[in-house]
């Protein structure tokens, strides 16, 4: 149906030469500056309907920034000064925030793990449709249809943190395409995938994009893999000047064997599955070995085992240094020089920094460097510590050609110093250029990922409204603060604890185990009151004198602690986190931004245990041989905790951007599967009121008699 407000699509747009008002996306004279330094300088590009535009250029040339401008992240969500104009079919959309642009635009950021915002795949796919206000009954069929088309139907009931890298990227793509955008922006959709997954995602892109499908702007270093899949751009826009890669292919000069280990039954953590079994690793000084294998085959675990940072294997890592995949996980200092000289000499650190082009940045905070600079810093920081064996996990991950060339020449120079180097990579061509030997791991069997807490069993209480449960438990707990009687309050604890196995179908054993901290707390409350209240003495041991009021208060306050804990177990053991937030949104009218911030926070929380283990291991490698003791432990813990905070804050912002790119914030919006009130809620409400009345009456009668 023709839209009368739209300009005639065939008319050339007089304001932007060479484009028409039919073009779904036109960037006109875009300049972006940070602190007055230009990141993008006067770039224009037009994306015709169904067209494919490839964006190329070295890292730092502003490709990702330009995508962020098109998506509306600059200036709405990210800092930076923007000049220029963005139009959609002739209409100026420069001031439209990302969620408004989601009506016609899809945006997929680089890291698939950070572009999945929710804990369940089905909800992830439904979210853009809910934000677009699609009628509720249309959402389910549409999710199924797109999932079938993109080959993710078998993943619909999975949790997002159980997906492999390739599966994550497919789901993220499905969520980007499900709202039928006219244009999609893809930031390196293949960069984090192994060759098989990359080929499959590239094939998917060829089928979905261009022609009758959405137009696309793609940033991708692995252009060859796109071409192999038949995805040929209609136009290439080049930013900056191309860098020339190094072509040295000299082999290493093998020295003596410096590491020879047979790895059997290696687990990531004590309760986890065996990840590496029956692999022999022998490394000679002055050689480079490539470690290859698909996502999830255990490359990182193998490296961690050799570095001696897996539980129980600490003795193994003598003389072995390891550089982790994400440099920011391993930073221990607040300046570049401090990082490079940590546990090493300052002169050597300065010399190494100069060799890899980081001279002049000594006083910068490592976190503020570009990814390429961070990677080089983390490699020289480990090299400065003088380990004969160096392990590198994906040292070129996320880098452009110039960044790869810089890391390659660094690895060669370390090899020529006589170090034995083992590096994990997906990049087969890099392995061809660099490695003297190869070690290939087989594909993994499908694994299980543990949830942060035990599942909630289906039960009467589990099906009650979480909002009502919260209200009942909260009000009852607050009411208990007004009492100082013993028996009625103890009765509340007994009733609550008995209710859990009956109404929530959680075993009594687990209920009591859950309450253990509460028992301790009640005991200490009792003792402290018993001995610290002046009054008639009942007896004593040395300085501890038990008193009459101490006993009365101690019993009453301990019972209060128990009762509040008992009520807490009713709520906590019967309430699913995601369902709670959904109910808060659909029943208690918690605004959508708060509800989805909490849901994304829950997803983030599921990622933290892994991040924490990685950061702890990465720091352990850095601090080896620098002395132990309690002070060192506390410092190490504090450093790791701070590192976790930085990583989490970065991820949190990526999740916020992904949510807005999916249209969160558009109105009106649909709630696909709202939590509704039911008969159970009536029973719970009436029952709670009757019980409360009974307890109050009991208390009054007790105090009268």
């Amino acid at each position, binding site marked *: 149906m023709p839209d009368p407000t739209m300009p005639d699509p065939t008319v050339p747009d007089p304001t932007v030469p060479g484009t028409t008002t039919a073009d779904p996306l036109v960037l006109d004279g875009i300049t972006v500056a940070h602190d007055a330094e230009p990141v993008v300088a006067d770039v224009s590009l037009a994306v015709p309907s169904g067209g494919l535009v490839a964006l190329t250029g070295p890292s730092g040339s502003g490709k990702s920034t330009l995508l962020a401008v098109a998506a509306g992240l600059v200036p709405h969500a990210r800092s930076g000064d923007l000049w220029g104009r963005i139009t959609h079919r002739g209409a100026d959309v420069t*001031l439209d925030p990302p969620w408004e642009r989601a009506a016609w635009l899809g945006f997929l950021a680089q890291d698939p793990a950070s572009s999945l915002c929710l804990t369940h795949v089905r909800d992830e796919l439904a979210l853009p449709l809910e934000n677009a206000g699609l009628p509720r009954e249309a959402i389910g069929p549409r999710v199924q249809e797109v999932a079938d088309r993109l080959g993710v139907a078998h993943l619909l009931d999975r949790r997002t943190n159980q997906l492999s890298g390739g599966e994550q990227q497919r789901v993220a793509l499905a969520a980007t395409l499900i709202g039928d955008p006219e244009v999609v922006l893809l930031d390196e959709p293949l960069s984090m995938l192994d060759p098989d997954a990359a080929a499959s995602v590239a094939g998917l892109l060829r089928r979905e994009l261009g022609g009758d499908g959405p137009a696309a702007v793609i940033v991708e270093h692995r252009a060859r893999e796109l071409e192999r899949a038949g995805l040929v751009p209609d136009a290439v826009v080049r930013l900056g000047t191309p860098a020339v890669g190094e072509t040295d292919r000299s082999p290493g000069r093998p020295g003596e064997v410096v590491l020879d280990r047979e790895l059997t039954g290696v687990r990531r953590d004590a309760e986890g599955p065996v990840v590496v079994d029956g692999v022999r690793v022998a490394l000679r000084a002055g050689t480079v070995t490539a470690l290859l294998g698909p996502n999830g085959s255990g490359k990182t675990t193998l490296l961690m085992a050799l570095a001696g940072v897996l539980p129980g294997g600490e003795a193994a890592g003598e003389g072995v240094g390891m550089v982790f995949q994400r440099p920011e996980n391993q930073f221990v200092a607040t300046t570049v020089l401090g990082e490079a000289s940590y546990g090493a000499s300052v002169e050597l650190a300065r010399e190494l920094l100069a060799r890899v082009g980081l001279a002049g940045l000594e006083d910068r905070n490592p976190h503020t460097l570009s990814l390429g600079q961070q990677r080089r810093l983390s490699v020289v920081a480990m090299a400065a510590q003088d380990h004969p064996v160096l392990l590198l996990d994906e040292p070129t991950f996320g880098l452009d050609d110039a960044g790869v060339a810089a890391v390659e020449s660094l690895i060669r120079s370390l090899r020529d110093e006589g170090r034995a180097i083992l590096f994990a990579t997906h990049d087969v061509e890099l392995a061809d250029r660099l490695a003297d030997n190869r070690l290939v791991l087989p594909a993994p069997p499908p694994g299980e990922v543990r949830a942060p807490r035990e599942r909630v069993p289906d039960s009467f209480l589990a099906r009650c409204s979480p909002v009502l449960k919260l209200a009942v438990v*909260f009000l009852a707990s607050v009411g208990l603060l007004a009492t100082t009687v013993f028996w009625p309050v103890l009765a509340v604890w007994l009733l609550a604890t008995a209710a859990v196995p009956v109404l929530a179908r959680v075993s009594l054993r687990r209920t009591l185990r859950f309450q253990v901290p*509460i028992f301790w707390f009640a005991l200490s409350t009792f003792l402290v009151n018993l001995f610290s209240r002046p009054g008639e003495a009942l007896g004593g041991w040395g300085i501890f004198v038990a008193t009459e009021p101490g006993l009365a208060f101690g019993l009453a306050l301990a019972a209060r602690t128990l009762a509040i804990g008992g009520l807490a177990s009713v*709520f906590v053991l019967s309430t699913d986190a995601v369902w709670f937030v959904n109910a808060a949104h659909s029943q208690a009218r918690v605004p959508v931004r708060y509800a989805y911030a909490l849901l994304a926070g829950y997803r983030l929380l599921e990622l933290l245990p892994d991040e924490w283990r990685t950061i702890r291991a990465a720091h352990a490698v850095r601090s080896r041989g620098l002395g132990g003791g309690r002070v060192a432990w506390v410092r190490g813990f504090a450093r790791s905790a701070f590192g976790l905070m930085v990583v989490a804050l970065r991820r949190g912002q990526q999740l916020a951007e992904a949510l807005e790119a999916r249209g969160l914030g558009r109105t009106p919006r649909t709630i696909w599967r709202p939590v509704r009130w039911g008969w159970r809620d009536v029973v719970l409400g009436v029952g709670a009121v009757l019980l409360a009345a009974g307890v109050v009456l009991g208390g009054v009668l007790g105090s009268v008699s």
Partner: protein
Amino acid sequence: MTQTNRTDQPVRAPQGRGFGLKEILAVVTLGVVFGFLYYLLVQGWNALAVAMGPFGDLAQNVLIGGWFVVAPLALFVVRRPGAGLVAEIMASIVEFVFLGSPVGPILLLSATVQGLGSELGFALFRYRRYDLVAFLVSGLTTAVFSFIYSTIRFGWLGQTLFETRLALHLTSGLVLCGVLGWLIARALLRTGVLRDLPAGRAAALDRA
């Protein structure tokens, strides 16, 4: 790099009212990270309580400041009235819903009281100061609010330990929430991770 030679004004995004998603999520992230770290550190709490023998109950007064550091941090990052209260409430939901804390829904009440205490500290400076002084004042006001609430909840009034508790509680607020909170805030700012949040923007303005 050359300086931009543009003299015309850059595009300005219209300022929305209320908290943006990025800001709320930053606040939730702080709640999630601290919730996770507390979860790891609860063992430390128990160890301290055991080491203190029958006075183990006092451990909570020693460590209390660490439990409300998230509020001044959120105010520092987001720089808007209400951020401290929102952060405390979000953090409490993370604790009793996401991590399943056995303390349960009453944490909502503690969070509200502590959040209001933190807000008062920054409100005294009309939300214009985010330096060590503001953190210390906020740490103190939060400790006062939290002490009054805990006195009611745990029946501290009438115990001979009352003054000791009060002293420990306030000191903990000053040190763990005030000093430590400020150190974390400063270190976070230096990493550049706050660049796209109000704290980072304010720092960029200061540099310019």
